[in-house]
């Protein structure tokens, strides 16, 4: 008996070490085949969560909740009633409201806020059997590309080195879903729901060597997600590979009566889209995405990606998206304008921080000055200005017209191609503290991702290779509205052809 239990203990130790290496799809297969239990998987991830604390990826850890849910998952596997994501241990970006678990959106102004409700997207994930390990750090109100604007402190990219917390040059994981990307890359979460307003899923995924998809605007419900820019915000997964992204999206997507902008369309089986077949598909290469100052190695990886798809049977065509360079300045009218309106609710009355003041306007002003960080104040001030009397036509209306032009460029391009291939970011992960001297410098991180949000299209980023510094670089695929299937199919084929296997030097 004693011997037997020792053997099984050793076996489980061995499993523990390797369980976090499995992709979401592999882990689900393993639980279905009873090779290990949901409880074992969750225990492995709780240990990984502790190992990865130096990254500051998790802002709230909920191991007890996760273990309790794992018990239910094991009961369901035993009874044969397991759901599609049964027992999958996820981290959740702290922009999703989670019932009974603090949600701060990375802001001081929401300190102490515990939602009484669950966001639709996370509720759908739990309904499909997934469970939560904790909440993940992010740029304040999702405004940032470096995770340095968070009130919970910066998250460190696990690609920084073997001892990231003590490295002399700590790298950013990207943002705003920086905690999500760092945790998934470091094997401290199997996958994570994130959000993307201008690149907040795709850019951190690219900087951490992961796959992320922002679906078409309207595909996922925005209900219960702390609002940033309502005409641009979309939820989507940060995952280890294309198959995992498809699995996650299948559970996250779908109509929700509580969000009138979520579309009444059936959700396709995204897994079935991963046929690996790209024969006959036309892949567009936009000439305007060759920007000044972009490292040559990104151009090389981009060309290689196109070549690999051609070898797999696709046809590569050159396309033009002439208004690309105007997407970013137009975004910095639309997004701040909508943010200034959405963030009006933080006034120290109903939830979060209150800084005293009399009369009540003084209380509002003190609260918002102390509660919002500099980037959020910057954007609320810009947004207030461009919406103020006399300036609306010159700025907001103009930006919305430019947006029509941008959307028109894509519609025109999709007459001659089925999917568009671009770089995901203009560079590799940079150091914490860099690009902080001029706000526009930081905003340029999203130069390739923002146009996709402006047009509401689906966009996927996937790892393309390593830079000469050994850091991951990503490519982006853009699809027609609601054609996530083609994006995923081409993404799957490209992933196979590229064969990216690198793992960050620091991981659980």
């Amino acid at each position, binding site marked *: 008996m004693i011997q037997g239990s020792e053997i099984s203990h050793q076996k489980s130790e061995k499993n523990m070490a390797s369980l976090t290496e499995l992709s979401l799809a592999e882990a689900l297969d393993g639980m279905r085949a009873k090779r290990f239990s949901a409880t074992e998987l969750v225990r492995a991830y709780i240990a990984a969560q502790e190992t990865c604390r130096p990254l500051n990826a998790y802002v709230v850890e909920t191991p007890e909740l996760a273990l309790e849910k794992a018990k239910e998952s094991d009961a369901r596997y035993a009874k044969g009633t397991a759901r599609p994501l049964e027992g999958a241990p996820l981290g959740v970006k702290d922009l999703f409201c989670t019932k009974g678990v603090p949600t701060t959106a990375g802001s001081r102004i929401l300190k*102490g*806020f*515990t939602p*009484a409700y669950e966001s639709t997207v996370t509720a759908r994930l739990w309904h499909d059997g997934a469970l939560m390990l904790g909440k993940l750090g992010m740029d304040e109100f999702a405004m940032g590309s470096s995770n340095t604007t968070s009130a919970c402190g910066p998250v460190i990219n696990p690609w920084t080195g073997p001892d990231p917390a003590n490295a002399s040059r700590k790298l950013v994981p990207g943002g705003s879903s920086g905690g999500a990307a760092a945790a998934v890359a470091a094997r401290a979460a199997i996958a994570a729901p994130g959000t993307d307003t201008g690149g907040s899923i795709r850019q951190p995924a690219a900087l951490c060597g992961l796959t992320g998809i922002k679906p*078409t*605007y*309207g595909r996922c419900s925005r209900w219960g997600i702390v609002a940033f820019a309502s*005409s641009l915000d979309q939820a989507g997964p940060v995952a280890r590979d294309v198959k995992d992204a498809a699995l996650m999206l299948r559970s996250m997507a779908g109509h929700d*009566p509580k969000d*009138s*902008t979520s*579309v*009444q369309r059936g959700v396709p089986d995204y897994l079935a889209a991963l046929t690996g077949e790209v024969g006959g598909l036309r892949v567009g290469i936009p000439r305007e995405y060759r920007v000044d100052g972009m490292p040559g190695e990104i151009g090389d990886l981009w060309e290689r990606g196109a070549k690999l798809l051609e070898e797999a049977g696709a046809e590569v065509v050159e396309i033009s998206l002439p*208004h690309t360079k*105007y997407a970013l*300045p*137009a975004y*910095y*009218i639309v997004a701040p304008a909508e943010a*200034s309106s959405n963030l*009006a609710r933080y*006034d120290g*009355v*109903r*939830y*979060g*921080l*209150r800084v005293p*003041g*009399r*009369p*009540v*306007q*003084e209380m509002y*002003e*003190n609260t918002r*000055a102390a509660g*919002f960080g500099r980037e959020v104040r*910057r954007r*609320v*001030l*810009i*947004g*207030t*200005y461009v919406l*103020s009397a006399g300036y609306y036509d010159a700025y907001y209306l*103009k*930006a*919305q*017209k*430019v947006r*029509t*032009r941008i*959307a028109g460029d894509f519609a025109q391009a999709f007459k001659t191609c089925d999917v568009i291939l671009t770089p995901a970011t203009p560079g590799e992960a940079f150091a914490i503290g860099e690009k902080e001297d001029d*706000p*526009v410098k930081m905003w340029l991180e999203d130069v390739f991702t923002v146009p996709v949000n*402006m*047009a*509401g299209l689906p966009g996927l980023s996937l790892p393309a290779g390593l830079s000469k510094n050994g850091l991951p670089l990503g490519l982006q695929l853009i699809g027609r*509205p609601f054609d996530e299937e083609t994006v995923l199919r081409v993404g799957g084929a490209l992933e196979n052809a590229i064969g990216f296997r690198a793992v960050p030097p620091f991981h659980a």
Partner: protein
Amino acid sequence: MTIDKDTVTRIASLARIKVREEEKEAWAKELDGILGWIDQLNEVDTGHVAPLTSVVETALPMRDDRITDGHCPNEILANAPAQAAGFFVVPKVVE
């Protein structure tokens, strides 16, 4: 210069964000720089272009005009910085 100190005072008040007097010059300079960068949009001909109001062509859904939620004052007040007798409490508005 589009944005000067007075403009900063005005928009900060509209945005209900306290900006200290000594910070105003720096904010004016920074916001002015950003708006200068944004001005490149004037190169785009938008003469006969309608503003984009919805990225996805879809009709707004209709629903029955029924109350499906509510009756949870305690949950609503649970996160309030100050509350009393089922109400949010704010500094006195009328003296």
